């Protein structure tokens, strides 16, 4: 067996009991996924395709019904850290204490955790905002802090659950470019959940396209676009080719897709 993976999922299956209809709903239908160390993989699919559920199973917030997942531990011993959607910073902690949270949970003394958090606050571009409370930050800045908090525990894998979904289109593009810069600097494996086709292509080495309930993998597409990528990549023909391919794939499976926002 190949041992150079960051994540290896075999036959991951998830069913819920629906009390109303008294039937089992299949959220994820026996899913296999391998992610290499340092790879950036997007899980792309409509809402209800089980992509967030898969991340939560990887993180341990949920337990699957069947299947096995193996994760490589990072330098710190942590395998994974999660970046959530909006409004997931602790509103009662300053940016600094939010970023230090994961380290403190791992048993690092408070002062030490704070000291180690500062470089990450700088890395995500929040210098000078360490003492602010989340309500004093814009949505984009909150997600930067959210990213720094996950980076701070120095895990092998970053699990990102639609982190830019609630940002406005312009901020989202800025954050996509920023994420690539930070990914390049931090050298992490990333599993990125999104329902936006252009976001997935722009960021990823591979886009794993999923169908709606029951969630299963429709295609695993390698994105062969040169790195480092600037936002102008989105206007290249290869990029739009991938977007068309994925769009046709999803619509042919009866998924109604939000049109990809025009790259203006």
């Amino acid at each position, binding site marked *: 067996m190949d041992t150079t993976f960051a994540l290896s999922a075999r036959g991951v299956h998830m069913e819920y009991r629906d009390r109303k209809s008294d039937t089992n709903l299949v959220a994820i239908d026996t899913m296999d996924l391998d992610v290499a160390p340092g790879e950036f993989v997007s899980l792309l699919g409509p809402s209800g395709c089980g992509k967030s559920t898969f991340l*939560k199973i990887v993180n341990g917030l949920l337990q699957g019904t069947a299947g096995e997942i193996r994760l490589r531990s990072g330098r710190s011993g942590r395998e994974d*850290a999660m970046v*959530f*959607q909006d409004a997931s910073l*602790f509103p009662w902690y300053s940016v600094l204490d939010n970023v230090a949270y994961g380290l403190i949970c791992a048993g690092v003394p408070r002062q030490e955790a704070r000291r180690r958090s500062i470089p990450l606050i700088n890395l995500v571009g929040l210098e000078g905002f360490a003492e602010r409370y989340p309500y004093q930050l814009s949505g984009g800045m909150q997600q930067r802090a959210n990213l720094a908090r996950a980076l701070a525990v120095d895990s092998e894998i970053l699990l990102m659950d639609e982190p830019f979904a609630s940002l406005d289109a312009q901020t989202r593009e800025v954050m996509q470019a920023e994420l690539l810069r930070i990914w390049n600097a931090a050298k992490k494996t990333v599993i990125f959940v999104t329902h936006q086709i252009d976001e997935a292509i722009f960021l990823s080495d591979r886009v794993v396209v999923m169908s709606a309930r029951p969630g299963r993998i429709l295609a695993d597409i390698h994105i062969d676009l040169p790195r480092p990528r600037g936002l102008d990549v989105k206007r290249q023909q290869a990029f739009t080719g991938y977007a068309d391919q994925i769009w046709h794939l999803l619509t042919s499976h009866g998924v109604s897709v939000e049109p990809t926002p025009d790259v203006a």
Partner: protein
Amino acid sequence: MSDGAAARDARLRGSLSQGVGYRTILPRVRRKRSPLGRWYRRNERAILGISGLASFFAFWQFGSMAGWIDPLFFSSPTDIVAAAIAEVQVPRFWDDVRYSLTEVTVGFLASFVLAVPLGLAIGWYRRVSFTFDPWLNFFNAIPRPALIPLVVLWVGLGIEMKIIIVFLGGFFSIILPTVEGVRTVEPQVLDVARSFRASSRRIFTSVVIPATVPFIATGVRLALGRLLIGVVVAELYAQTQGIGVLIGKSADSLQSDRMMFGILLFTLMGVITTEIAVRVERRLQRWRPNVNVEEGN
């Protein structure tokens, strides 16, 4: 100015031409105010508030002097001040004040110290909640003053009875919001803590308690109002000692000035305790945007 004239011309032409209407929006013309007018505009709130109060007291004073208002029932501002000056020189008065303050302090601290931990436990642990919910609902439904005769039967007319009544008023005002606060902690924020493998203890101290602080603060402000009611009712029922006795006894002997002074003292207590609570609350909630705390209840 010529712009305005041009716009007015345009409006005129618009209304004359058939079928097409125009609406012209002109800039606001600033009226020039006299210095006095400007001073009034800046201090309007204070001026209207103070003059309202002043005319009320003036009307009261002159009314009782002129005989339109019966001083026997309504007293007068100067009489109340005189009664206050006489009263503060009596040692028994200070005993009464100390007595009432002791009831409030002990009763409040006891209710806070018991209600907060129990409320957190009921909100967080399902089994504790299933066990205590019926009791909470049952006791909360009892109008507290109805318990006074029973408490008197158990512990007598002394300060213990009053402290128990104050405690009951405070306890339920604090525990119910606390339970509510724990139950409404954002699930997503709990997920964040769990995703970082936070221990249950840390989840409690880093998420549950901070998220519940605003609710506890609301409960405390509610409690302060309720427990003052408790003090007054308990002291009026068992007139042994305290400011309530001052009010009750003066009413019996038709000394409306002393009675009004007693009422003012309770009001002052309410204002001061609420002010302290509001300050503590602001300090604890610097992380919240615009904590607009309403004053009093």
